[in-house]
C-alpha cells in the first residue's frame, strides 16, 4: 500500500527527537526548545494530514516488521488510532510549551524533555499498534519512559512515589505479557480486528475468561481501576506538566485505550457479553467511579483531589466500553478526549497556582480568583465540564454514556452517572466557591502586578484547552469533533445504531 511508511514516520518524529534532546547540552535552551517545538508541530501537522486522508479518502496505512516471537510489529492508522493519536499530538504541543515555561532554569532539563519525548513516542506507538503484541511493546516503553519523569525532582518522596509507580506498572505489565502470550498461543492471532478477532471463536470459554482477566488486570493498573489505583495519587510528586501528561494523555489513557482495544477489537463486545464478562467489568468501573469520587472528597491537597478525580473519570471510559451499545461506546471514546482536555486544564491550573503563590491545599485557596483571574477562569470551565454542566465537554459524553446504559437495558448506569456527577460537584464546587467568593488571605492577596498574572507560556496552554472544552461541547456535531469521530468508530465496532434515543 502506498504510504505504508507514514505510521513509522509519525512514530519516529518523537522517537528521534528524544536522543537529540538528550544529547543537547543543559544550557542550550534555544536549541532544545527549537527541537521540541519543531517535533511537536511537525507531528501535529502529519496527524492532521492523516486524519484528512482517513476521513475523506478512506485511506488506511499499515507498516509491518517481522519479529522472532509472537507476531509482527504492526503500526497502522485507523480511525480509533487517530482519535488517540490526535489527542496525544495536540496535547503534547501544549504541554511542551507549558513545561518549557514551568521548568525555566530548573536542573536536568535535557533529561526531562528527552524522556518527555520518549513518553510521547510510546503513546504514539500505543495509538498506532495494530495488534496486541505491538501494543505491549509500547505499553512497557511507556512505563520505562515515565519513571524518570515521576522521580524528576529526585527528592526522597519522589523516589518513593516512583518506586510505587514502578511496582504497580511492572507487575501490571507482567500480567499483560502473560495474557498476551497465552492469547497468542491459544488463538494464533493477536490482531486488532473491527468488532473482534474471529480467531478467538475457536478458543474454549474458560481459557478466554482467564486471558481476559489477565489482560484487564494488566491494563487496569495503568487505567487506575480499583483496586490497582494506588499508584496514581503517589505519582503526584512529579512536576505539574508530568502530572498533566500522565493524567490526560499518557499513562491512564494508555490503560483505558488498551481496554477499549481489547474489549472491542480483540474479544469484540458481543463475545465479551456472551462470556459474561461485560457486566462484571461495567460493575467494577461503576464502583471505581463512585469510590474515586468519594476519595476525592476527602483530600485537601489540590493535586491529590484531582488525582482521585482521575481515578473516577477514567472509569467512565471503561464503563462505556463494557456496555453493549454503540451509544455507550461513543460516550467512552468521546470521554477519552474530553476527559483529557478537562483534566489537563485542571492540572496546568493547579501547577500555575503552585508556581505563582506556592499554595497546594484546597483550604488555602480563598480568594485566589482575584490573584489569578485567567487561570481560575480556565479552572472553572474545566471543573464545570467535569461536573457535566451543559453545554460543556463532560455533559456530552455523560449524556451518551447514560443513553448507552438505557440502550443496553442497564438503567443503573444512569444512577451511577448521576451520583458521580453529584459527587463531582461536591468536591469541585467548593474550590470554585473559595476561589471566587471568599475573601483573599495574606497569601492570595497581592494583586497581579504587570500585564499578566503569570508568564504566557504557563497561561496560554490552559486557556487553549479550556476553550476546547467549551468548543467540543458546543460544536459537538461539527465534522472532526470528537463526537463525529467517535460515531464513525462506534458504528464500525457495533453496527447497529438504535433509533429514538439520539438520532
Amino acid at each position, binding site marked *: 500500500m502506498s504510504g505504508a511508511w507514514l505510521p513509522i514516520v509519525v512514530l519516529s518524529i518523537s522517537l528521534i527527537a528524544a536522543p537529540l534532546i538528550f544529547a543537547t547540552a543543559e544550557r542550550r535552551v534555544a536549541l532544545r526548545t527549537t527541537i521540541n517545538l519543531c517535533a511537536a508541530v511537525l507531528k501535529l501537522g502529519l496527524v492532521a494530514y492523516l486524519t484528512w486522508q482517513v476521513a475523506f479518502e478512506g485511506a488506511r496505512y499499515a507498516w509491518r516488521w517481522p519479529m*522472532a516471537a509472537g507476531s509482527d*510489529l504492526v503500526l497502522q492508522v485507523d480511525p480509533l488510532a487517530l482519535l488517540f493519536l490526535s489527542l496525544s499530538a495536540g496535547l503534547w504541543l501544549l504541554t511542551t510549551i507549558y513545561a518549557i515555561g514551568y521548568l525555566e532554569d530548573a536542573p536536568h532539563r535535557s533529561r526531562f524533555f528527552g524522556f518527555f519525548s520518549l513518553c510521547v513516542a510510546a503513546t504514539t506507538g500505543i495509538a498506532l499498534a495494530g495488534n496486541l503484541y505491538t501494543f505491549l511493546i509500547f505499553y512497557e516503553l511507556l512505563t520505562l519512559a515515565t519513571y524518570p519523569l515521576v522521580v524528576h525532582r529526585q527528592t526522597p518522596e519522589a523516589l518513593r512515589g516512583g518506586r510505587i509507580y*514502578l511496582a504497580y506498572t511492572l507487575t501490571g505489565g507482567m500480567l499483560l505479557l502473560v495474557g498476551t502470550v497465552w492469547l497468542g498461543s491459544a488463538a494464533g492471532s493477536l490482531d486488532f480486528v473491527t468488532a473482534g478477532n474471529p480467531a478467538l471463536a475457536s478458543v474454549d470459554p474458560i481459557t478466554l475468561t482467564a486471558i481476559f482477566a489477565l489482560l484487564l488486570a494488566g491494563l487496569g493498573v495503568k487505567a487506575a481501576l480499583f483496586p490497582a489505583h494506588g499508584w496514581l495519587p503517589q505519582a503526584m510528586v512529579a512536576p505539574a506538566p508530568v502530572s498533566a501528561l500522565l493524567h490526560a494523555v499518557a499513562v491512564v489513557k494508555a490503560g483505558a485505550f488498551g481496554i477499549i482495544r481489547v474489549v472491542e477489537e480483540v474479544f469484540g463486545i458481543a463475545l465479551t457479553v456472551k462470556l459474561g464478562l461485560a457486566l462484571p467489568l461495567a460493575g467494577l468501573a461503576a464502583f471505581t467511579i463512585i469510590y474515586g469520587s468519594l476519595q476525592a472528597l476527602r483530600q485537601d491537597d489540590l493535586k491529590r483531589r484531582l488525582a482521585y478525580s482521575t481515578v473516577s473519570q477514567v472509569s467512565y471510559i471503561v464503563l462505556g466500553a463494557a456496555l453493549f451499545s454503540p451509544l455507550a461506546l461513543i460516550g467512552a471514546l468521546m470521554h477519552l478526549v474530553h476527559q483529557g482536555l478537562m483534566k489537563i486544564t485542571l492540572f496546568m491550573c493547579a501547577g500555575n497556582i503552585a508556581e505563582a503563590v506556592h499554595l497546594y491545599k484546597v483550604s488555602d485557596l480563598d480568594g485566589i480568583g482575584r490573584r489569578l483571574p485567567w487561570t481560575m477562569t480556565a479552572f472553572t470551565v474545566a471543573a464545570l465540564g467535569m461536573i457535566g454542566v451543559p453545554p460543556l465537554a463532560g455533559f456530552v459524553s455523560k449524556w451518551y454514556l447514560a443513553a448507552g446504559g438505557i440502550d443496553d437495558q442497564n438503567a443503573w448506569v444512569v444512577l451511577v452517572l448521576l451520583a458521580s456527577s453529584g459527587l463531582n460537584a461536591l468536591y469541585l464546587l467548593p474550590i470554585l466557591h473559595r476561589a471566587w467568593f471568599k475573601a483573599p488571605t495574606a497569601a492570595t492577596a497581592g494583586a497581579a502586578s504587570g500585564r499578566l498574572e503569570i508568564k504566557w507560556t504557563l497561561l496560554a496552554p490552559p486557556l487553549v484547552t479550556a476553550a476546547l472544552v467549551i468548543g467540543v461541547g458546543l460544536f459537538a456535531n461539527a465534522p472532526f469533533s470528537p463526537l463525529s469521530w467517535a460515531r464513525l468508530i462506534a458504528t464500525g465496532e457495533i453496527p447497529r445504531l438504535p433509533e429514538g434515543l439520539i438520532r
Partner: protein
Amino acid sequence: MPPVQGLRMSDAAGALLAGVDWAAVAILTPLVGGAAAFVLPNRARAIGVAASGATAAAAVALVWLIATGGPYDLAVGGWSAPLGIRLAADGLSAALLGMTNLVGASVAVHVALTGRATKNDPEAGVAAWGFWPLWLLLLAGLNALYLSADIFNLYVTLEMVGLSAVGLAALSGKADAFKAAMRYLLVGIIASLVYLLGVTLLYAQYGVLDLATLRQVMIPAPATQLAMVAMLAALAMKSALFPLHGWLPPAHGNATAPVSALLSALVVKASLYIAVRLWLDLFEPTGVGAGAVATVLGILGACAVLWGGLQALIAKRLKLVVAYSTVAQVGYLFMCFPLWAGGREALTAFVYLAVAHAFAKSALFLACEQVQRALGDDQMSSLSRPELPGAVKITFALAAVSLVGLPPSGGFIGKWLLLDSTLLHGPTVWTVAVLCGTLLSAAAMARVLARFFAPEEQAVAQDLVVGDAASWRFSLTPLLLAAAAVGIGLLGAWPAELVNVGETVQ
C-alpha cells in the same frame, strides 16, 4: 532444511566464502594468536586485537554459510567417525559461535582501548601479557567447543575453556580474586573429571565417541544413565546451576571487569551448550534421559531464577548484583530443559536468552569498570554521586531492559518464547516461576537505576582518574553492547530461522 530467507548474497561472493574452511580458521587463528601473544608480550595487544577481529570475521562467515547453506560437517584428518573426530555445526552452534565471537571481539577492543589509556595504572588495567594469550586460547577453546561433535573432544575443549578462565579470573592479582580463582579451579577440575567419568562409562559400553554414531547405538541401560547423570551434573556445576553456583559470584565479582564480562557472558554458556547438545542429540532421542531428569534440571533452574534474583536484590556491591543476575539467568536457560519435549520454541527461547544475556551482561560488567573508576568503589550506596558519567547510566538502563526481558530487547523475545512454551507444555507453576523471577530481576535492576535519580550527594574529592572514566574509550564498547542486547529483539525473524537450521547434528 531450506536456506534461511532474507540472507541471499551474490553467487560469486557465496562461492568465494564457501571455498575456505572458516571453522578451521576460527579455531586456528586464535591458537596462533595466543601462542604469538605469549611469545611476544610487548606486541600482545596488537596481536590480540588482530586475532580477535580475524576470528570474529571467520566466525561470521561460517555463521553466514550455515544460515544460507545448511549445517557444517567435517571429518578431521579425513578419518570418518567412529575412528576420527568430527566437527559439526548446526543452527544452535552457529548462533552461539556468532555470539561468542562478536562479544569477545568487542571486549577485546575495549581492553585495547582502555589499556592504552591506563598505562600507568597497573591496578586497574588488565595485565596485558597475561590477558591476551589466555583470552585468545580461551576463544580458541570456545570455538572448538561449539564446533565439536565428539564427546571426548568436548572434554578437551572444556579443559581449555576451564583452565584459561581460571587464569583470567586470577589476573587482577588481588587476594580475593586469587582465592575465588582457586575455588573456581577446583570446581572446574572436579567437574571435568566427573564429565570425563561419564565419557569413560559411555566409551566402555559402546566403544565410540562420536555423537551421531553414539546416538545410533545407545540404549537406556543403567550404566548409560549413570554416565548421563555424571555428565549433566558436571556441566551443571560448570554452569553454576543452583545449588552448585557458590563459586560464581566471588569469581565473577572479583575478577577485573573485562574478564568478568567474558566469564559471565561466554564461559558459562559453553558448558551449558554441551549439556543442551548432549540432551538434544543423545540422551533425549535415545530414551536414556527420562522426562524426570529434565524436570529436575528445570526445577533447579527455577530455584536459581528465584535465588539469584533474591541475592541480586540484596547485594551491596554493584558487581555482585550483576554476578547474581548471571545465576538467575542461567536458571532461565536450564528451565528450557523440560520444555524441549514440546517443540522448537524452547530452543529458540534458549538461544535468545543466552545471546541477549551475553551482550547485556558484558555491557554491564564493562560499565561496572567505569563506575569503579569514576567513584573509586562499586558500593550500591555510592551510585548516586554526580561524578558518574551519563553514558554509564544509559548503558545500565539498556542492559537492564534486556536482562529483565522488557520489549523490544532480545531478552524480551526470549522471555516471550519461554512463556509461550511454559504455557503450552509446562505446569502453571513454571509460568509463575518465570514471572516471579522477572519481577525479582526487575526489582534488582530498578534498585540500581533508581540510584541514578537519588538525591545528589556532594562530589567526593578523588585522586582517581576521573577524567579517564568519562572518556569515550571507556563508554563506547559497553554502550554498543547494551544497544545490541536491545537491538537483537528487532532483528526480525531470521535468527529464529537460523536456530532451526539442521534439527540435529547428523
